[in-house]
């Protein structure tokens, strides 16, 4: 059982042709583990996240993604989600006219394969919103429309809670959060991970979130590859040294 990424090569589809971004990513996330990925801007972290989720803009040119042994590569975006994969996005998308309540119910129904029990569901939604310090009125608002940057991120964690996937990727969920929101979101993520059998991949630029959410592994991501792995102390070292040491070496390919 794991989310296994094997020698993943990915190109992004652009107007001028395909542009290779990921150059052989290897990573295994087992249930109960927390992994953090840190790396410079443009190194391909979001590309990795989107490729796992199946975004059509990215083409997997070689490699494999196995979720508990099931190959995700040929699957559509929604099938991957129903297999138990969740992506909290760096830039959550606005969907005018679709209420959060309707969206959450539709997603829950799709993931579980059956409609959520009416009586408990509304309570759960309200509880999850409250946990993320979002007012009840958010349920009636359009998905992400007019949400502040921080509210969008907290709404992603509301979904994480309600959909309760086996594996979750959080792409810079901590960016743009104020100090209180960071704590609220971190506690939310920890509550999700608390079950002990969930796999978590945190993409982040800052060690501050790692003070709340303790990673078992830290990976340094440079130029489409993982160039170094270590435990939580690696993040602290990065804070001091930056990515200098690896950036020079990446010219080799």
């Amino acid at each position, binding site marked *: 059982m794991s989310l296994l990424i094997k020698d993943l090569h990915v190109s992004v589809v652009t107007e001028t042709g395909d542009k290779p971004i990921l150059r052989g990513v290897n990573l295994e996330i087992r249930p109960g583990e927390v992994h953090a990925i840190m790396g410079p801007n443009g190194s391909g972290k979001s590309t990795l996240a989107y490729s796992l*989720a*199946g*975004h*059509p803009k990215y083409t997997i040119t070689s490699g494999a993604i196995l979720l508990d042994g099931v190959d995700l590569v040929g699957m*559509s*975006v*929604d099938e*991957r*989600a*129903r297999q138990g994969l*969740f*992506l909290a*996005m760096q830039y*959550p*998308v*606005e*969907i*005018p*006219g*679709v209420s959060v309540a*309707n*969206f959450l119910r*539709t*997603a829950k129904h*799709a*993931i579980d394969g059956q409609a959520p029990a009416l009586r408990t569901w509304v309570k759960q939604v309200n509880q999850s919103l409250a946990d993320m310090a979002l007012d009840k009125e958010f349920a009636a608002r*359009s*998905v992400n429309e007019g949400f502040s940057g921080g509210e969008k991120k907290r709404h992603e964690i509301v*979904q994480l809670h309600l*959909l309760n996937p086996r594996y979750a990727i959080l792409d810079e969920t901590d960016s743009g959060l104020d100090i209180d929101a960071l704590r609220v979101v971190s506690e939310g993520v920890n509550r999700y991970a608390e079950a002990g059998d969930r796999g978590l991949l945190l993409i982040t630029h800052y060690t501050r979130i790692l003070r709340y959410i303790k990673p078992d592994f830290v990976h340094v991501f440079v130029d489409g590859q993982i160039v170094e792995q270590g435990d939580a102390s690696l993040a602290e070292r990065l804070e001091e040294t930056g990515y200098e040491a690896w950036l020079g070496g990446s010219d080799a390919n």
Partner: protein
Amino acid sequence: MSGIEYLSITTVDTEPRTLMPFDHLSVYAKPNSAATLRLLYPGSGRFNGEVEIDLAEGARLTIISIQDWRPEAVAQLRYRINIGKDAELRHAVITLQGQWIQHETAVTYTGPGGRAELLGVYFAGAGQHLQHSVYIDHNQPNTTSLVDYRGALQGENARSSWVGEVSIRPEGIGTDTYESNKNLILSDGCRVDAVPNLEIETGEVRRAGHSATAGRFDDEQLFYLMSRGISPAEARRLVVQGFFASILARIGDSEDWMERINASVVLGV
């Protein structure tokens, strides 16, 4: 002022016919009255109709014109509306299908302070040409017009033409007007023409603006919904529903026309 009356008229019979009927209807809204009138246009064949509406001082009238034609129908429909002093009109057009449909709404004001809200919802399927035009003549002081038409197109040669002509006369000081036409293109082979036009003959307006857009389905929205396990068909339905949601809420009709629009969309997915 009396209570709100609700009147529903089916103007043509539902059987296909080949002749060209001409239908003329006059509506007079008494001073300070309030009413909702729903006009239903079903059936097939050729149809040519005109509706004349007079709102007296302080009247509040909602007109809902529902064009639920058969796909082969050809129809031409004109609404001529006079809005009295401080009267309020809400006019909503829902055009679900038809081979060639021309729907025209012309508004003038017979006293100051009148207000017109003109709403439109349409769905053009393959080979259907839906034409909507709106003419507003701000010929009195302090009048308001808000125009919001939204349509979805799907299928080969689905076509929408939209014209919005707003004139602000020298007498139309203090006019507040905004017209908008938004189109959601759901497949290849559709065509959208939108011509918003604004003619201003006075310097003292409160607001005068217009916009027209035609956009394809947003793939990022689709991706976001699908990444939560929602199937592509369901995701499309949600986005289309969302596109029409605010305008349908403003029309506020009790009938489930949204369901019909959804059904049309799902058919084509």
